[in-house]
């Protein structure tokens, strides 16, 4: 989605007001939970729906 919007990770981190390290945790799937406020900010910044950035992968 970032590539589609031609946006860099650092830019997104700055827009949604989280650290690049936390964004990296989110991207790598190491995060244990995502706050609704973070999800809302990401969707707003990327102009997309939660389903566009979330994916279920079976272990």
């Amino acid at each position, binding site marked *: 989605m970032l590539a589609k919007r031609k946006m860099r990770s650092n830019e997104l981190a700055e827009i949604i007001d989280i650290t690049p390290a936390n*964004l990296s945790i989110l991207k790598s799937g190491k*995060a*244990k939970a995502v706050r609704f406020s973070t999800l809302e900010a990401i969707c707003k910044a990327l102009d997309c729906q939660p389903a566009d950035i979330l994916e279920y992968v079976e272990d």
Partner: protein
Amino acid sequence: MKDNTKILTIITYVVLLSSVSILLNDMREFDFNQFKEFQNWAKAANKNDSWFTSKNAIQWSYYTISAGLFFWRGCLIYGFSYFLSILKEIENGNYFSDKNIKYFKKIGNIFIWYTVNVLILRFLLAAINKSSFNFFNELKAEFTFLIPAGLAFFILAEIFKRAKDTEEENELTI
């Protein structure tokens, strides 16, 4: 918080130093020359005589048990020294660290083992001196409060373990 930690560290140092000085003083007052007398007796004793019933053997047991009591008091003081390690971790901002959990468990273990072993040694001492040993009276003694204190430290360790998991979960919630 940092000031409180400093005050607690100073108090812990005072308690530690007083305990060590009391222990060393008790050891100084204890007549270790008796061990030498026993060694001399052991060399000269008739090997055919019954060892266990002799007066010297009883005396030897008495001093061994006294040495055991000193050892366990030393262990208790060693347990107190873990408070300093915990306070240092807190000072560094590592409240729910693995080290703190480990230290709490160690303190709990030392408190409980100290009480159990001192009870056993006091029982043996009473048996040797042929004096009466009332288990319930011994349980009422001040030092047995270390058993609930030890259990409290185990509970604290469990709480800290849970807190550490929660802290980790919180840190990984973006």
